[in-house]
């Protein structure tokens, strides 16, 4: 067997296992403070929530209602609704709320993109904190109250919260539910302890408004403005925190095609952002984020993708060879059926590595469920699907590398 391939297997195994162990150690070490809430010294500061929307007539009402039902005093809460040139009834729905005292409605005649909408909201706001929320999401009444406390630390530039899928029904929604709970909630919490949060997710994140202004607002050229702003915060030396004790519910793609389009945008945006901030890579000044997270995370992704492709090539060429050999025996398939017991000694070390990786991923997932107080039985289908989802991730990354390398146009939606 090719020594390059074997080295690739060992490297990817080592890096991914290291990541899993690191997360597990953080979970063990910090489990007592995962859900700890911090009181903000300054009482109830003014906060603006910007809610940009493009053709979201079905979900926008629920999003606005969740904001109007917040535990936070409404006089300290400003809501800016931005209709980004919708062609459906989104604008009309927003107009129904124009008379509500703390709501401002902004109408873009033509679609300008999410980042420009957020910047418009930032311009209009005079609050100390800015929250950005997706128009297909709804937050828990205590979301602002609980997350603002993290800004007690002056170095904190943004706070993210736990993300859950709103009423997951289909298998795909259940799988994404598990993925969000682990990848966009617990993982971010773990990463916050090594100051390596790399995204302030779109469904709901809060920023210090003076920090956003100082950095020039959201990047209107980026297709993943929530990722880009997080990298910029890291570049400027700000911490990003995660609040697990509250959550935002969001809707997710219902079919594979929509999921593919969403992930191509996310992952292509990630690649563009990493390229833009390549100077942070191995930069001591950016601490763990530059020295560990960026090289390790994207190293595993890139090497994992190469490993996936080379394994796919080897397996398919093996299958092709075997099938072509069948022609030499006139496709006498019955003769190939072998009832011999599997010889355990003929098990390759590659299988041992593969089994250990799958085992480690299962342990991480189960521990994550325990930490998140999620019921394993209720989420069993999503859980099993999530473990098998890794093949799809490779497809998404492959599509994204292709899109970025060949300058394919990526739509925001």
């Amino acid at each position, binding site marked *: 067997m090719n020594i390059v391939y074997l080295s690739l297997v060992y490297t990817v195994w080592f890096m991914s*296992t290291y990541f899993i162990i690191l997360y597990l150690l*953080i979970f063990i070490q910090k489990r007592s403070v995962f859900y700890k809430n911090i009181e903000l010294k300054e009482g109830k500061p003014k906060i603006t929530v910007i809610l940009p929307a493009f053709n979201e007539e079905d979900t926008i009402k629920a999003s606005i209602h969740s904001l109007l039902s917040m535990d936070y005093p409404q006089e300290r809460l400003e809501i800016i609704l931005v209709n980004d040139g919708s062609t459906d009834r989104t604008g009309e729905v927003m107009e129904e709320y124009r008379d509500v005292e703390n709501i401002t409605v902004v109408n873009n005649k033509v679609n300008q993109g999410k980042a420009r909408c957020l910047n418009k909201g930032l311009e209009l706001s005079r609050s100390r904190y800015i929250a950005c929320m997706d128009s297909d999401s709804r937050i828990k009444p205590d979301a602002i109250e609980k997350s603002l406390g993290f800004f007690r630390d002056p170095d904190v530039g943004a706070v993210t919260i736990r993300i859950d899928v709103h009423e997951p029904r289909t298998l795909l929604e259940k799988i994404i539910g598990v993925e969000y709970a682990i990848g966009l909630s617990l993982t971010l919490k773990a990463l916050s302890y090594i100051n390596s949060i790399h995204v302030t997710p779109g469904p709901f994140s809060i920023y210090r408004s003076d920090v956003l202004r100082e950095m020039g607002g959201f990047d209107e050229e980026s297709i993943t403005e929530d990722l880009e702003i997080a990298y910029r915060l890291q570049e400027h030396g700000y911490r990003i925190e995660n609040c697990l004790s509250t959550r935002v519910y969001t809707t997710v793609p219902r079919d594979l095609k929509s999921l593919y389009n969403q992930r191509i945008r996310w992952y292509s945006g990630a690649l563009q952002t990493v390229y833009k901030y390549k100077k942070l890579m191995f930069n001591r000044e950016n601490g763990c984020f530059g020295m560990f997270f960026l090289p390790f995370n994207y190293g595993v992704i890139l090497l994992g993708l190469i490993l996936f492709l080379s394994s796919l090539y080897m397996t398919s060429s093996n299958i092709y060879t075997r099938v072509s050999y069948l022609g030499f025996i*006139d496709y006498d398939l019955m003769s190939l059926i072998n009832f011999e017991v599997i010889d355990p000694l003929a098990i390759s*070390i590659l299988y041992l590595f593969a089994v*250990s990786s799958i085992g480690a991923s299962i342990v991480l997932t189960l521990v994550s469920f325990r930490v998140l107080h999620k019921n394993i039985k209720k989420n069993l289908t999503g859980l099993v699907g999530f473990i098998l989802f890794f093949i799809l991730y490779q497809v998404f990354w492959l599509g994204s590398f292709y899109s970025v390398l060949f300058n394919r146009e990526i739509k925001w939606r």
Partner: protein
Amino acid sequence: MEVNRRLFLTAGIITALIFTSIYSLNLILGDKREDAILNRMEEINEEFSEMQTITYLMRVYGENITCIALREQMSYLDEKIWKLGEKIDSYRKVTEEFSSDPFYINQKKRFNRQEVVYLTMMRDMKEKCGIDQLIVLYFYGKCDENGKCDEQSFVLTYINKKIDPEIALYSFDTDLDLPSIDILKTIYNITELPAIVVEDETYEGFHDRGKLEEILCSHQNLSICKPDKQVK
């Protein structure tokens, strides 16, 4: 940062420990594989000694009684040798995924030598005891690009499985540089791989199932032979 450093270091140590455990497990499995091969090789050696003893008996006491014992012994050994060859190849494959191991090369040499000995015994017995197995010799190695040695091995394995008691198949790896195999190559005038020798007649190049069955049936009536292709 101090806490972080300790955290990163601990994660590194635990990962290294798991890696070492898997590596050690593979080493243990490697030893077990070697033991399994050696045990089988030992069993076959025992059988050979027994056969050699019977051969001596034959010389002294005649062929009538000894041939019955020898025939049973040979069909039993035939299957055992073939399975050992397959085991050596499969274990060698999984071992080489981790490191190149001279053990399997040596065992392969030993195995090929045993096959040469077994072949000579078989030829001798065939005549004396009237054994009706068709003797097929298969020479392979690193074939040229179009040599199709792997393909030929696949077809021969298939045929052997189908008519195992009717043929005695001996495979020789010419890359092992064994003088005994070189002698056989010279005897049968083999210049190209893969090559098959059926009852002293040499067929070079690749032969698929149809062609191979035709060749075999031209030498002896076997269960796979169609009535019109049988030897008159």
